């Protein structure tokens, strides 16, 4: 079985700054893959590189979706192949109504969308209530729901979720993640970037950890969760103390 998304040895630059250093990953169809890492590790950059959102990037390396090369393609074409990306910070079209936002999600399709709309409203009943409201007037959580709903309208095979929990209350985070899980159950493969590692690992089947533009750890969600470094740095389960009473962050070096 071929993998749905394969990233091979990708280098990405912002001007002179290298953000990805030979990053490689594979996402198999069906599961939820969580991508963990600290701020600036290159998680969002990886997603943007996959989507072709960065001009002239990737500088090096190859990206395949469903066996077809997509690196160097236009974002529009990549999106039309069946990858949907929910960007960090929601980025809904603030001056379009909820309904219009959803419709624009299905822009690249020509078949009927009524059914899909019903599906979305089943996931997010609250959007139905607010269907004629400007998206900019929604609350953060509702906007996140809208962003996910909009992405689903294109009937993607792969959904890239960037920090869905950002700035949301714990209750809402729980709600969103439940929905993410059920979306996955309905057949959409998900690549999930999260700072909230605990939540991410609870829904994911596999997980990867990024550090400074490269992958340093990969495994099933349970394996990754069991990793002592992950426990210490991402899950906050400090286990040892140094002689001086300070945590030794330097241990990260081990992964190089």
């Amino acid at each position: 079985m071929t993998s749905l998304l394969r990233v091979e040895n990708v280098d990405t630059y912002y001007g002179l700054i290298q953000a990805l250093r030979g990053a490689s990953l594979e996402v198999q169809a069906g599961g939820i893959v969580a991508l963990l890492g600290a701020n600036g590790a290159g998680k969002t950059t990886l997603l943007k590189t996959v989507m072709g959102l960065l001009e002239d990037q990737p500088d090096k390396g190859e990206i395949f979706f469903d066996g077809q090369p997509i690196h160097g393609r236009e974002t529009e074409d990549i999106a039309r192949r069946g990858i949907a990306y929910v960007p960090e910070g929601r980025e809904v079209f603030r001056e379009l109504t909820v309904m219009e936002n959803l419709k624009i999600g299905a822009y690249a399709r020509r078949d009927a969308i009524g059914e899909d709309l019903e599906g979305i409203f089943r996931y997010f009943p609250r959007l139905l209530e607010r269907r004629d409201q400007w998206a900019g007037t929604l609350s953060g959580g509702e906007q996140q729901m809208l962003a996910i709903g909009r992405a689903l309208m294109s009937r993607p095979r792969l959904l890239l979720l960037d920090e869905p929990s950002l700035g949301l209350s714990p209750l809402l985070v729980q709600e969103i993640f439940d929905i993410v899980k059920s979306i996955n159950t309905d057949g959409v493969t998900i690549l999930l970037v999260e700072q909230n590692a605990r939540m991410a690992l609870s829904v994911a089947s596999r997980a990867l950890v990024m550090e400074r533009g490269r992958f340093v750890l990969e495994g099933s969600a349970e394996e990754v969760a069991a990793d002592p470094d992950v426990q210490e740095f991402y899950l906050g389960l400090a286990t040892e103390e140094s002689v001086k009473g300070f945590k030794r962050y330097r241990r990260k070096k081990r992964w190089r």
Partner: protein
Amino acid sequence: MDILGNLPQVLFSGLAAGSVYALVALAMVIIYRTTEVLNFAQGDMAMMSTYVGLGLLVAGGLPFFWAMLGALAFAAALGAFSEFAFLRRAKEPTVLGLIIITLGIEMIVFGFASWKWGGDPRDLPTPLSPADVVVIGGVIMSYLELATIAISATTISALFLFLNRSKAGLAMRATQQNRAVARLMGIRVRRVEMGAWALAAVIGGIAGLLVGPATTVEPYMMWDPMMKGFAAAVLGGMTSLAGAALGGAIIGIIENLFGFYVSTAFKSVVPFAAILLMLAIKPSGLLARHYVKKV
């Protein structure tokens, strides 16, 4: 001077003039919202389309309607070409740089048109003679002015319908709001931008075809309407279509009121004074809904 007796006539005249400004303003707003460019070539693109219409009509011998349609088709092509050939090529464009590019396009179009057709004014014959008028309640309305107002109103309504009801219009609005995310939706934003330029050029072209019969066809025919259109767009808030339409009407009426009741000498300055006043009170323009500054 019969002060009040003339008022309806002045208002009507202002509205007729203003409806042309409104079209130019709409064209500028469409381009500004989609690509954040102040298109200073708008007027001269319309001028050139008018010449093409005149050529099709007189030299080509086409019937009036088809000649005008041909002019608008040419306008669309010219707009799309400008975007495709110049604006899109700019790498790392800055706002000022883009303005200078449109000025460059303006000069190229202007130079080409005056080379091809010369500087002498010409007449754009229309089925409507300027002397055909209808008098309603003491207000003399020429068919040409009535047609101008009607065509402008129709164009503006059609534009609203297009933007609010059609899928392409939706895509255009989405692109205006967030280009990157629009691409994520599978919208081919470059085509949308090219389409916006074409659309704007067509709307500007309609303005040109309305100015032509009322004045003359010559290389400078669109300078004044273009300035007023720009002013109208800013008055309306630069990002609001309804504002642009309203702004055009307001400027047409204000300057006619001022010209008639105060002085014709400073008539062309008044719209700008009005804008200064208005912006001093409401810096985002009449109908712009937001003016959020990115920090």
